[in-house]
């Protein structure tokens, strides 16, 4: 037996290691930059403009056009190749855009192509943020209720629901931590698609957790009288293959898209991959150990004598 439940101190520590960089980033960013997370304009409002020029371009020159037109807080940097730039400034209306276009034409000639343009007022951005948080909260709440109901015949069904939700929040934090680090490395941002990825991860991670809980429920009926730790361990080992197996197929497809698919989806798919791996980990090493910890009323295993853990079944 692997004694997963017994070693839960290690697993919780590992989880913290994955989450702490994100928390450090949020604190640092909050203090130095005034905002905690690298949010895209979906949440903050503003303008995002991708322009491809006919020849290689110096971002500073492009920025000058915007500064001259009265937008000093513009950032411009190249993405993809050195002919394509991404311009970010506060939200503007159609007249202002026309003025800026005239300025660009005057400086660079008409030889540029607008790849994408997005301008979002700040009120909408705030609404989207609130709705995103609400979405995650509502999804978590519904899942908690559903699991508590599905496991109503096991003692303390709400524990299962709650622990599943804690594991799920863990996955969300790992994903955010990952994106914060990638923001430092490659300038990735949290946008509406990120929310989509997070909610997918939530749904899928809980699926995985439920597979394990389902086996615990079954073994509970079958091996009445044994210590909870023992039942949980046995369930984890029995389900490990299928738990990992169900994730592997999804990961095969996702990795394939990450490697072969275009760059547009890369951030989205990478987020999904990190989330799924975290979900796989949390289902085995977080959710069940948490339930056991609750049983034990102690986060770390107590040092008491335990019966043999090779678990011969009491009845068939």
């Amino acid at each position: 037996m692997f004694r997963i439940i017994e070693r839960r101190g290690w697993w919780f520590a590992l989880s913290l290691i994955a989450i702490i960089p994100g928390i450090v980033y949020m604190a640092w960013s909050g203090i130095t930059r005034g905002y905690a997370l690298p949010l895209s304009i979906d949440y903050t409002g503003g303008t995002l403009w991708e322009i491809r020029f006919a020849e290689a371009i110096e971002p500073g020159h492009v920025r000058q056009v915007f500064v001259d037109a009265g937008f000093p807080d513009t950032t411009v940097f190249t993405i993809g190749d050195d002919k394509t730039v991404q311009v970010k400034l506060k939200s503007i209306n159609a007249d202002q855009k026309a003025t800026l276009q005239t300025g660009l034409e005057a400086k660079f000639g008409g030889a540029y192509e607008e790849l994408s343009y997005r301008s979002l007022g700040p009120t909408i951005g705030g609404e989207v943020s609130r709705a995103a948080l609400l979405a995650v909260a509502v999804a978590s709440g519904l899942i908690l209720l559903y699991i508590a109901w599905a496991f109503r015949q096991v003692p303390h069904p709400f524990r299962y629901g709650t622990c599943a939700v804690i594991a799920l929040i863990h996955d969300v934090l790992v994903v955010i931590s990952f994106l914060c680090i990638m923001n430092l490395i490659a300038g990735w941002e949290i946008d509406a698609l990120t929310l989509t990825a997070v909610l997918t991860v939530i749904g899928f991670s809980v699926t995985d957790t439920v597979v394990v809980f389902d086996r615990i429920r079954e073994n509970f009926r079958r091996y009445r009288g044994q210590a909870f730790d023992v039942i949980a361990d046995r369930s984890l080992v029995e389900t490990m293959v299928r738990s990992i197996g169900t994730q592997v197929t999804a990961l095969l497809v996702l990795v394939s898209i990450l490697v072969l698919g275009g760059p547009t989806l890369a951030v989205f798919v990478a987020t999904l991959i990190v989330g799924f791996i975290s979900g796989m980990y949390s289902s085995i090493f977080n959710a069940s150990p948490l339930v056991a910890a609750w049983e034990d009323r102690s986060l770390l295993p107590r040092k008491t004598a335990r019966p043999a853990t090779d678990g011969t079944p009491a009845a068939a």
Partner: protein
Amino acid sequence: MGIRNNNIFLVGILILVALALYVVLPLPHPDWLARSETSGGANNFAGLKLGLDLQGGTQVMLEADTPAGQTLAAGAMDTAKRVVENRVNGLGVSEAVVQKQGDNRIITELPGVKNADQAIETIRSTGQLEFVDPKGAALDQGMVINTTNRPDSVQRAQAAAADGSADAVPTPFPDQIFETVMTGEVLKDAQAKTDQLNQWEIAFLLTSDGSSKFYNYTSTHVGQAMAIVLDGVVLSAPRINSAIRDQGVITGQFTQDEAESLAVQMQYGALPVPLKVVDVRTIGATLGQDSVRSSLIAGAVGLLAVFLFMLIMYRVPGLIACIALVFYIIFLLAIFKIWPVTLTLPGIAGFLLSIGMAVDANILIFERMKEELRAGRSPRLAVEAGFSRAWSAIFDGHLTTLISCLVLFWFGTTFGASVVKGYSLTLGAGVLMSLFTAVFVTRVLMRSILGNRIHSSEASHAAIGF
């Protein structure tokens, strides 16, 4: 469960597959099915409608711009939506979408429209048309004046120019309020056209009430000028040469875009409430086409990897799972086409992801079967036990994914994030379909393989492969 039932199910499934294939493949289809195939090329792919992010286009969210302290009149937004819809169609945008959003917003999707700024301004401008008596003042095209119905046009235009949100406009008569003698209600129709000199002009027709009003005014003011004003801006101030009864022409220095835009605004009436743009996004089409191709290649490779995995891990049942997976893809594509679902890039990702997830139900079942076999059950009973015992875990798991899809759907609908909405639909449809194919179809196929003869234990084991 008798074997005859199973054969019926098997035949039923095969018929469904054939039907689905008919829907998906490029065969001649009846009209209701072929509607998304009609305009080939840029806006559909394998007969599926492409979303804005794939075919290029613009999406705009408009919000009612009621002055501070005023509340929105009941029904105003419905009227506004109708006017916007008419204008969008009048602009000739095919497959445009106009939807009311919440209490005070309208979302419009304009596929294929890239230079959207003119279109957006046409759609959202108030469109208040007035025929104004200049009473001797020399009014000219482009001037902003105050009228009875719009007594503060000049003030507003000057304020906008002062804070930089608009260009400066000529306002030679800032304190005068000109009399509105008729409004755009007299118009029945307006069309932009060129005259013999290839100048753009707007020809208009009057309603029967409008005709009498127009005639009464013009017959008593022959020789004087009449200003035609749109949203406080003078379009033209021609001299009345003779009484006008049913129709007329507005001439001026108009480009084609301007003339068409004006015609659209005049034709469908004024907006009951001003609309401002709170979110606009334009996507060029070039990004889209490449992404679709590479995503599909990636999906095909991923699918092959999944096939190999299943075959190696579970052999014969693995093969059955692969067949069920192919059926799954065909069924899902058929549903996408019939619904019809609009394909976006994340939607494609969601579809591919759901393929990866569709087999997980099979893995649960097969692992269960292995356990039962190890515990000593006969192959046939192990198969049945595998399916029935694994069901609760499968159902619970899929339900939680569906909960996520529902929440995403709500989020996408509330914010006009059609991309998020499309993703939630494709993923949700995939989860539901996988319940069907991974459980029901696989079971029918497995039973068919085991057949209705009583196999010896070894033969059954050989049939299953483990």
